[in-house]
């Protein structure tokens, strides 16, 4: 029953990494893993659905503009040690948001982290493979523009 991270900074960096993986994992896998955990938690913010405005930029460099609203589900849990587990996903799957919050909590505790970490590693690899496949597909359609020598020498 203890904390894995001694500093806020270390927790922040590790958490950014695992949350970026967890939000991409299919919902049923997350929920299945979360169901196997036995953590006593209080729901500080029960899963709730809301709207978030997304911003876009032309070519990723132009002026930001309002792209439209997307639905967002969030959930915040607290365990008996005072850790906070956050789950935020696009969409309205409350069970998925709660599962992410629960896994976020589990990863902060020494005794439950190993099991989740091993699954996380498998998921991370899966995501990397997906990314590599997508990269490849994009590369195939790549067009190289080049300019021939023009005009009179």
């Amino acid at each position, binding site marked *: 029953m203890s*904390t894995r991270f001694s500093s806020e900074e270390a927790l922040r960096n590790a958490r950014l990494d695992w949350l970026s993986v967890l939000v991409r994992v299919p919902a049923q896998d997350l929920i299945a893993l979360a169901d196997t955990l036995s953590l006593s938690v*209080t*729901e*500080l*913010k*029960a899963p*709730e659905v809301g709207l978030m405005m997304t911003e876009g930029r032309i070519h990723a460099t132009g002026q930001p503009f309002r792209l439209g609203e997307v639905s967002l589900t969030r959930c915040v849990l*607290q365990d008996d*040690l*005072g*850790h*906070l587990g956050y789950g935020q996903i696009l969409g309205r799957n409350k069970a998925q948001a709660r599962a992410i919050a629960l896994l976020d909590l589990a990863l902060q505790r020494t005794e439950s982290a190993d099991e989740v970490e091993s699954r996380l590693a498998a998921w991370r690899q899966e995501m990397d493979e997906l990314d590599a496949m997508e990269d490849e597909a994009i590369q195939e359609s790549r067009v190289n523009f080049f300019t021939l020598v023009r005009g009179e020498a």
Partner: protein
Amino acid sequence: MSHALIAAPAQPAHIMQKTFRAALTALSEPARAVPVPEIDSPAGASPALWALVLTLLDQDVSVYWPGADETLKANVLFHTGVKWSDTPETADFAVLAADSSQTLALLDRVSVGSHERPDMSATVLFVVGSETTDTLVEGPGLKSATEQRLPMNEALAYRLGQQAKTYPLGFDAYFVDQHTVLGIPRSTRIMVRAD
């Protein structure tokens, strides 16, 4: 580690809609105590104050709350995402103790808006103490001038009465006790009974 955070109320949207309705009623029917839905509140805030805080504050506004301790501040920031202001001048909302001797000085520093944008003024939430004052109140939302015992000391009642002179500039005030809220908008004229 983290301070003692309390859980958000169940059915938050319903609670906040009812509280917003109460806040709206309080300002449109001044000087009348309006009941607010009862919810669990953190130490340092009454249930009614906490319901109003959850309803009125969000990440687009700032609050000045000199009386809040670390735990209360942590709860407010966690549940609302509000910007914490260290000076009254820059705050959209101020939470002040009605009985405190420093309150009058702070009121001179809260935003009263500008003639172009009187709506940009602050809203002040007064935490009601034990002092009361007999007054005569009149203005929009009151059918006729009525005698009211208001939950504030005489100096504060006089100060709020002075707002008639600066109208449309000024701040709107809520007086919050355990389970009710009472509104004194800037348009309400308060006369302290001299007897």
